[in-house]
């Protein structure tokens, strides 16, 4: 079957997915930042009985935290996010003058709602949050440069290594946009927050996307070296078929483990695992249906054709 011949449909499919994500990213807030990026406090409390959001909210409002974001997880657990809570104050003789605010909140909830059986507490100061944002930006930038350099090196022996590099990077950006878009939509519909682990997810997806593209390109590289006379279009088509089994099997097996982890693992790593799942699906798709197709489009002059179609370039004289 000729996969290359249907490339327009694949490009349109990707375009639609990315466009939806970009629209969501353009409507503020683009992503819902978690406390890692904003600073503040968050606690997850498990009560001895099922609880409702309203009873937790009334206690928090009474404690001077009407701004709290409250989400009931399961039945008996609640996630509460507030502005930074005060630490305990010690007197000159090292005795506690005022207990830490989160301890006061826990006590009030324990007295007025139900006994608390397990707790998790995180607080991040604005200093750390600013730094995390900065480091994340640096990490993503360094990763992008490192991957670019690496791709150029990996394809140094093929004709037009630059084209392979550019196509792999386009696939990479494609995957990045899909994951960001998906989290933007999830943030608006399901209050999905992004935290440091999301950055981990994104960077890993970048690594995986390149990983997948390289396997396909490696096959094209090998087939080209064996048959110089054949048109690139045929070689790429054949290479895609040869690697399709591997691509699908690898993605499926990895997805199986990740879906198990998503469904059975704890709620803490769900955002991370979800980023992996989305990233692997889009990474596999883009390596087959975007990167390799673009390579052919470039070779046979699709881009010029599109420009001429849009009357942006002069028609060919011949």
């Amino acid at each position, binding site marked *: 079957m000729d996969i290359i011949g249907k490339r327009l449909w694949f490009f349109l499919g990707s375009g639609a997915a990315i466009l939806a994500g970009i629209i969501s990213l353009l409507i503020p807030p683009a992503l819902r930042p978690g406390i890692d990026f904003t600073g503040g406090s968050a606690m997850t409390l498990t009560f001895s009985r099922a609880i409702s959001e309203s009873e937790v909210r009334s206690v928090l409002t009474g404690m001077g935290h009407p701004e709290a974001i409250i989400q009931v997880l399961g039945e008996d657990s609640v996630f509460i996010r507030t502005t930074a809570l005060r630490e*305990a104050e010690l007197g000159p003789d090292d005795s506690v003058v005022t207990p830490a605010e989160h301890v006061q909140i826990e006590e009030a909830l324990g007295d007025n709602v139900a006994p608390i059986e397990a707790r998790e507490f*995180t607080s991040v100061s604005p200093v750390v949050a600013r730094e995390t944002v900065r*480091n994340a930006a640096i990490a993503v930038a360094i*990763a992008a440069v490192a991957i670019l350099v690496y791709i150029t090196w990996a394809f140094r022996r093929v004709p037009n290594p630059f084209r392979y590099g550019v196509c792999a990077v386009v696939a990479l950006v494609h995957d990045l946009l899909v994951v960001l878009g998906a989290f933007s939509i999830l943030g608006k519909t399901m209050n999905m927050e992004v935290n440091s682990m999301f950055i*981990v997810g994104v960077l890993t997806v970048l690594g995986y996307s390149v990983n997948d593209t*390289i396997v396909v390109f490696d096959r094209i590289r090998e087939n080209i070296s064996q048959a110089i006379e054949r048109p690139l279009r045929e070689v790429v088509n054949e290479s895609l078929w040869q690697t399709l089994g591997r691509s699908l099997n690898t993605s499926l097996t990895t997805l199986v483990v990740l879906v198990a982890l998503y469904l059975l693992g704890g709620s803490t790593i769900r955002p991370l695992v979800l980023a992996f799942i989305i990233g692997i699906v889009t990474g596999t798709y883009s390596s087959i249906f975007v990167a390799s197709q673009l390579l052919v489009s470039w070779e046979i002059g699709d881009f010029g054709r599109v420009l001429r179609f849009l009357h942006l370039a002069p028609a060919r004289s011949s």
Partner: protein
Amino acid sequence: MSRFLFRFLHRSLGLLSSLVGVAWGRRTIRAFIFILIIVGVSLAVVLVPDIHIGGFERGGDNLLGLTLGLDLQGGSHLVYEAADPDATEDDMKVAANTIERRVNAFGVAEAAIQVVGGDRIMVQLPGIADVEEAKKLIGQTARLEFKERTCLVDEPDNPCEKPENHEDKDIGLTGDDLARAWPGQEQTKGTPIINIQFNSRGTPIFAEFTKRIVGDNMKRIAIILDNTELLAPVVKSPILNGTGFIEGSLQNPFTIDQVQRISVQLNSGRLRVPLNLIHESTVDAILGADSLQKSLQAGLVGLGLVLLFMVVYYRMAGVVAALALMNYTIIALAVFKMLPVALTLAGIAGFVLSIGMAVDANILIFERVKEELRTGRSLSSAIETGFRRAWPSIRDSNISTLLTCVILYWFGSRLGASLVQGFAVTLFLGVVISMFSAIVISRNLLQLIGLTAVGRIPSLFTPERAREAVRVTRGS
């Protein structure tokens, strides 16, 4: 010993091979022994709960003796920052030492305290029940006191150092009066000593005190930090200008380590860097245990499904992949235990992802082997060619993941993000071990099986060929 082992294995394999009718090459046997040793050692490492080799200790009460991160065993991760921007690296070391001493006195086993990024201190308190109490202790001011000690009894077998044999009296001299303490060497003997220097308030008090007790065998200077005795030296000569030194006894001289440690402790009672808590993350042990159990369950279910898929789809090769994958898991766990790598939730996610990579390497190889089989090669030659062809893509594709791991490790190194580092480390190690497992273990196992009677039925290795064979039979 190894020669004996080799001969023994060679003979027993020879016996085995005569049963299944196969000639075992020397190279295959070497490879087999190599795999056996690696997997055997790894399995032993994973299964032995406590490992003690000389000063090297690993293992513990956790699952398989693995080191667990705070989110899986419960505990507190605290990061403090110096409130004073001029705090030096030395000040931070002193502050970290103070925290360590107090946390240890509080009875937290395996607390880790470490200066990060020059002006921050990371405190990890595993399995702690009352974090607020620990935070209170960390926030307290250190109390260094110099007291006048009067010995009631001082005999070689019943020394003055015993608590019941002396009385300590306040002389109004505290850490506030000490200017600094630093390690040094005695000028003539070259033995390690601790230099001390008092400030203008402390100097006259110390001069008066040392003048008074010099030469008295029943008097000592008791130096006490947070109610724990550091030292109780005898005064040999009065110190009038505020600068003196403490040396060990003739029988029991100080070591270099000792004078360094005591100098830091003296300084910790002297100066205090005000610290602000800038990051806290506390997880109840009960939640940690719950997360651990859930993610283990998820991992096992996922691994089981993958193994099943591999066997169903790739037949005999899938069985080999399943074996290789189990070996991979054992080796990876052994490496995590020995380094040790603290497993966090994110780390488990990284490990799970690396299982995916390990499967990928196997799949890449098997697809190649299948192709080579289709061109009509013998199984053994198909395996060799398949591996050789698959290697560049396994290598090149994994390098990009390794690059990402290195960058993530840096991202996490600045604190608050030990989760990120846990992920980067497990994924990195996972990818490296998975390449090893695919290239060394899968390849040799496949060759070994190829040599047995099973290897003569290619349809066990490639589903297509089985189907083609059926078609050919029908056609004729």
